């Protein structure tokens, strides 16, 4: 699969990109490899597979300097699960060592003077940054086809989207260009690409991970989280990423940091090792299993749920009666917040400035219209409308009221079950370009991820087999607030008895036509 030359002995390097976070951490701790060797190997791989469009920016010098620093810490005897482990960041998280574009021409070449809190926390644990990953412009999209720098390609079928908006993150992990990546999720942008690319990703409860340094899209919904090959690897990353950041993010939760690996491999309370999930009640919303979901997706999801039954869990039907209302509510609230957040791009202090302009108003208008892509401009217009005088109550306030009803429906459901399961999206990944001309159809496909986003609940996607065209299907698990460790425990139990998460895409040859950054 990979024939890129590296400076290291082939016997060890052949294996390096196939190793996950936990395995790499162990190999680094045992000094069987070095952070520099791993980083060099994965940088070579990133170059060899640049046609996938996963990366928007690499900075080999910075990566190798971080790797050398990690190797020095290892040599000094320090140990840690992420020390020397390489990963890559979605390009909406700002980084000092790499440019941050948010997938937009508006921020082309932008250099942040600081690192996002989640980036800094991973770096403090010794993680090495490989580069910045493609995404929909300002995270507005669900196919990575709204990136100003060209699409990212699904490694399972390069003619299809990887999902979005964290599409580059999902591609990098699925194509074994990085063992793990950060993503952000506003309406499903971690869970849906994880599902489309056959990897594991978790959106934590709103407020778990600091939004400091996360380029703002919709502030009451934006949340960062890890994307990796397994629940175990996600737990290792989330442990480093999450935790209060009270001085820098006014919505950061005050709950103390947690070890999200602590329940992995443990049986459910009161259960035996033979039936480790005995007592777990999984609620299946009728609204997620209706005719709106493709049969191949439902078949894969039901097969995964049968595995949970074998592990001792009980499945029961529940209702989330306002599921459909999540679409209009989200597509009012998120654009409203976006229109406010994106007003900062005025062509004055940073970002694109039109070469020709008259007065200040002209400068604003030309700079913004030249640099924002069509979907971003549509959402700004929509948000401006619903917040404008005379319409605020009818749209924005109404949507926020429905948001509360949706959140209350989840609380009613959690009085009957411990967690909720269903599909992540109504279909497998679609062909690149299939929904670009019809954004409304892409909005409708967000139906199963939007409710948990509006309610601020943690949601996880894990591989659950394959659907039409041998494309991956994800199983979504939604938990109550702050139940991330439980979600990861339940996901890990399935990964102990199944191998869907270990499947790799077919060999990535020949290189597909992609847009180089």
């Amino acid at each position, binding site marked *: 699969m990979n024939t890129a030359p590296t400076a290291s002995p082939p016997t060890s390097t052949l294996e390096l990109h196939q190793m996950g976070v936990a395995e790499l951490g162990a190999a680094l701790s045992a000094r069987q490899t070095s952070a520099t060797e791993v980083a060099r190997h994965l940088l070579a791989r990133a170059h060899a597979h640049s046609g996938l469009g996963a990366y928007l920016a690499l900075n080999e010098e910075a990566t190798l300097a971080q790797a050398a620093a990690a190797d020095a810490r290892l040599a000094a005897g320090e140990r840690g699960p992420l020390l020397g482990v390489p990963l890559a960041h979605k390009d909406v998280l700002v980084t000092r060592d790499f440019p941050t574009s948010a997938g937009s021409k508006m921020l082309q070449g932008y250099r942040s003077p600081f690192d996002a809190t989640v980036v800094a926390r991973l770096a403090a644990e010794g993680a090495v940054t490989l580069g910045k990953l493609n995404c929909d412009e300002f995270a507005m999209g669900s196919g990575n086809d709204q990136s100003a720098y060209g699409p990212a390609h699904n490694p399972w079928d390069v003619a299809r989207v990887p999902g979005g908006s964290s599409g580059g993150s999902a591609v990098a992990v699925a194509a074994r260009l990085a063992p793990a990546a950060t993503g952000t999720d506003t309406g499903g942008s971690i869970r849906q690409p994880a599902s489309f690319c056959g990897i594991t990703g978790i959106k934590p409860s709103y407020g778990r991970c600091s939004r400091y340094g996360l380029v703002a899209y919709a502030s*009451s919904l934006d949340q960062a989280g890890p994307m990796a090959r397994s629940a175990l690897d996600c737990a290792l990353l989330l442990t480093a990423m999450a935790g209060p950041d009270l001085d820098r993010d006014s919505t950061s939760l005050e709950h103390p940091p947690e070890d999200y690996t602590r329940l992995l491999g443990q049986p459910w309370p009161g259960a035996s090792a033979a039936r480790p999930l005995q007592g777990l009640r999984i609620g299946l919303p009728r609204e997620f299993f209706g005719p709106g979901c493709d049969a191949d997706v439902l078949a894969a999801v039901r097969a995964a749920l049968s595995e949970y039954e074998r592990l001792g869990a009980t499945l029961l039907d529940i209702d989330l009666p306002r599921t459909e209302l999540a679409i209009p509510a989200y597509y009012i609230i998120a654009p409203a917040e976006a229109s406010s957040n994106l007003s900062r791009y005025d062509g004055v202090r940073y970002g694109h400035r039109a070469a020709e302009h008259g007065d200040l108003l002209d400068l604003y208008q030309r700079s913004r219209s030249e640099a924002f892509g069509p979907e971003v401009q549509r959402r700004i217009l929509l948000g401006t409308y619903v917040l404008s005088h005379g319409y605020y109550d009818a749209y924005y306030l109404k949507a926020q009221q429905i948001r509360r009803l949706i959140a209350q429906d989840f609380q009613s459901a959690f009085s009957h079950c411990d967690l909720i399961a269903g599909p992540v999206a109504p279909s497998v990944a679609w062909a690149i370009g299939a929904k670009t001309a019809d954004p409304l159809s892409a909005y409708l496909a967000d139906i199963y991820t939007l409710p948990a986003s509006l309610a601020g609940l943690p949601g996880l996607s894990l591989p659950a087999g394959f659907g039409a065209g041998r494309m991956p299907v994800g199983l979504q698990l939604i938990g109550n607030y702050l139940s991330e460790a439980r979600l990861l425990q339940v996901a890990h139990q399935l990964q102990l008895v199944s191998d869907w998460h270990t499947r790799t895409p077919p060999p990535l040859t020949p290189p597909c036509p992609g847009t180089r950054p």
Partner: protein
Amino acid sequence: MSLSLQEIERLARLARLRLTPEQALDAQQRLNGFFTLVEQMQAVDTTGVEPLAHPAAVLQPVALRLRPDVASEPNQREANQRSAPAVQDGLYLVPRVIE
């Protein structure tokens, strides 16, 4: 409901965007298409339902924190202006606003 082209142009002005006639027409069609979805929301009775701005407020009231009003950041003017389109003597340059 349905937005007219005139309203689209007014919104673009408010949003500090400049649309070509084709873009305005496209935006009009797409926004009006979206508002067919919004109609189902209007049918829901939300009398007396408190709007939810911060998701965690479902469980308990959330008060946004304020940090003490003290200078905590060092001067980062040069780093901050590194990505500025036009600066001079540490100041951002904009078109003349006062004749």
